[in-house]
């Protein structure tokens, strides 16, 4: 709010648009996180923020600081790179964990034996039941 | 803004104190963490709270000392954070040892409320 540097109008419009778009995308993503019924569906929501939402805002930042500071502001690229590298690590492990837990709970999810390659699993009603933490709800162990 | 900070400190502190008074070791350790958040914010709030006045000196603004946030509480909070972390670690291990040796996670090493 104290910034006294002036931007050319086109840059200002662009930055504003990017910011708004990024914000909206993130919001929509989180809305998905809230609205979806099953865990696997919810996983898709935040990716909006983590991909395009992030990119828009990073671009806005780069543009803004390139225009206001002396030199090109490229270091925001790092944020994009880092985020792209690290988000999948979490997602992969989390998805795998969820899958394991669902299997253990006897839910209708694909089993690890690969027998039902083409089967289609509906995932939208998976999580309606309420349960809590790591290791309750003893189900039959998955048959390998 | 002051009101929000104050309420935040109060909420963190209150939740922390509530947990401290609980009978289970894990509750206590969470309580310790929350209280230390509250305390850190409390120390922090003793300085000037201001947006965009980072205590990093810039040539253009070096003349006007009053423009910067108060660095001292920040340094104090840093120390407090570190010490708080260390204590959490210690308490955690002790909690585990206590659970193993006494067979219960009650803070007094025996059941009964």
């Amino acid at each position, binding site marked *: 709010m104290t910034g006294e540097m002036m931007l050319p109008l086109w840059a200002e419009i662009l930055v504003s648009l990017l910011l708004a778009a990024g914000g909206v995308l993130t919001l929509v993503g989180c809305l998905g996180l809230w609205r979806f019924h099953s865990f696997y569906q919810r996983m898709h929501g935040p990716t909006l923020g983590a991909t395009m939402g992030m990119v828009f805002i990073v671009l806005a930042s780069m543009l803004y600081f390139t225009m206001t500071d002396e030199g090109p502001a490229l270091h925001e690229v790092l944020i994009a790179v880092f985020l792209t590298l690290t988000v999948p690590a979490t997602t992969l492990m989390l998805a795998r964990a969820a899958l394991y837990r669902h299997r253990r709970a006897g839910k209708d999810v694909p089993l690890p034996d690969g027998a039902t390659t083409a089967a289609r699993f509906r995932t939208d009603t998976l999580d309606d039941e309420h349960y809590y933490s790591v290791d309750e709800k003893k189900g039959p162990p998955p048959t390998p | 803004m002051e009101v929000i900070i104050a309420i935040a400190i109060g909420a963190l502190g209150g939740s922390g104190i509530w947990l401290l008074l609980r009978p289970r070791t894990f509750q206590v350790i969470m309580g310790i963490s929350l209280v230390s958040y509250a305390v850190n914010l*409390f*120390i922090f709030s003793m300085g000037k709270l201001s947006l965009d006045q980072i205590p990093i000196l810039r040539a253009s603004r070096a003349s006007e000392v009053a423009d910067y946030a108060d660095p001292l*509480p920040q340094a104090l909070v840093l*120390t*407090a954070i570190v010490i708080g972390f260390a*204590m959490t670690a*210690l308490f955690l291990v002790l909690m585990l040892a206590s659970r*193993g040796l006494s067979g219960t996670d009650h*803070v007094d*090493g025996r059941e009964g409320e």
Partner: protein
Amino acid sequence: MMLSWHDHLMIVPIVLPMLVAGLMLLLGEGRATAKAVVNVAATVTLLAVAIALLRQADAGPVRVAVYLAANWPAPFGIALALDRLSAIMLLLTAIMALGSLLYSLARWHRAGVHFHPLFQLQLMGLNGAFLTADLFNLFVFFEILLAASYGLLLHGSGPQRVKAGLHYIAVNLVGSSLFLIGVALIYGVTGTLNMADVAVRIGQVEASDRMLMEAGAAILGVAFLTKAGAWPLNFWLPPSYAAASPPAAALFSIMTKVGVYVILRLSLLMFGDQAGESSGFVQQWILYIGLATLTFGTLGMLASQNTGRLAGFAVIISSGTLLSAIGFGRDSVTAAALFYLVSSTLALGAFFLLQELMERSRTFGADLLAVTLEAFGLDRPVDAEEDMSTTDIGVAIPAAMAFLGLSFIACALVLSGLPPLSGFVAKFALLTTILNPDGLTPEIGSPEPVLAWVLLGLLVVSGLTTVVSLTRIGIRAFWVPSGRAQPRLRVIEVFPIAAMLVLGIVLMVQAQPAMRYFTDTARALHHPDDYVRGIMSARQAGPGGATP
């Protein structure tokens, strides 16, 4: 102005332990003997330094040596200040440390890993707390000494220690949070952290802000009272002290004194006579709490049936006595309280050490054995060399029982304030100054304040209960025939106890010089102007004050 080597002596009690601890860590995990040697050497050096510092502090009528760490002037950087009070506390720490260390060499130092580094770091924390003149730095040193005390308390592990440790740590963590809140409030109102500067600025604080400062000081006080073992904040104390391994407990006997030390220093610095109405207020609170503590300690002493708990309550009585004496707010009483502090700390230390020797033939090894049984039942003991075997506790020295009995009696005498050891002189000094704070002058028809009489009575009663309880314990330990074998002692275990008791005797014989020292100390404490001026006017080293 360049500093000579001599000027750095003051910081040695902090730097040396840290250096030694670092070195010991590099030595790796085994090498207990090498570490023991290093540790003893360092502790002896500390003792020598403490003596030198005591002489330095006692050199002139009013002498405050100030050391500006990192060479920044006083209210800004962290200043260390050495006056008579700090010096005597340093000396006491060094003595207790050497005693416990020697004792631990007999076997306790092998009861777990990292005893030696933790021990040195404990000393660093204690020494730092006694030297620093900065509130936040005090917090840091408090944390060091507490952290190390956690380590030492848990040294040897076992269910008892773990449970006590859990309580001890939880309580102290809350205490530390209060400490931080208090310091933060004081900073928020006065804008400074240096104790002397706080004392100066208190006078300038606006009336509308003043109460915030006082609230800060009050919360700070709660933290210190917790550490000093004041009622109703001291319930952690007896179990923890009973659970700690004896050398650790002996060293702990000075820990509650840190709380007392800080209360003494800060209450007089911040709420001395210059503080106007709040001065009396603070003193009165301390007095009330001290009386309550004393009462609680006395009751607990009477009720406790085992030596460990009893020793814990002895600590509480000692704290209660000191607090009420401080709460009296007269320099003569303070002087006597300091005498009492030294005497009772020595005795408590000796008692904690002795206690284990007394119990040795009964419960030895029980708790250790429990831990040695490894967790999974499959592992070999973690480290064969560090687990003690019960066979080589020591050779039976002649008249071991006689020694134990005599030492026990000596401890009991000092603790209860019975003649002829230093405890009596200490208690006499306390009582006579409480009744005659302005010195012995005949004075007719001026009844003393009621609280003086209450304190007098409580002190007498606490002494009596101590006698009764210690007699009970002593009779059970020494007189009831139980068919026990003679305990086997090592000279290295016996020596520290004897030395501490001999120091008690020396203190008694040399009561006048000691009292003179304490009187000077107390006078300086009650008139902190010199302390404040000394710190605030300390000059930086180097040309023009700035660093190159």
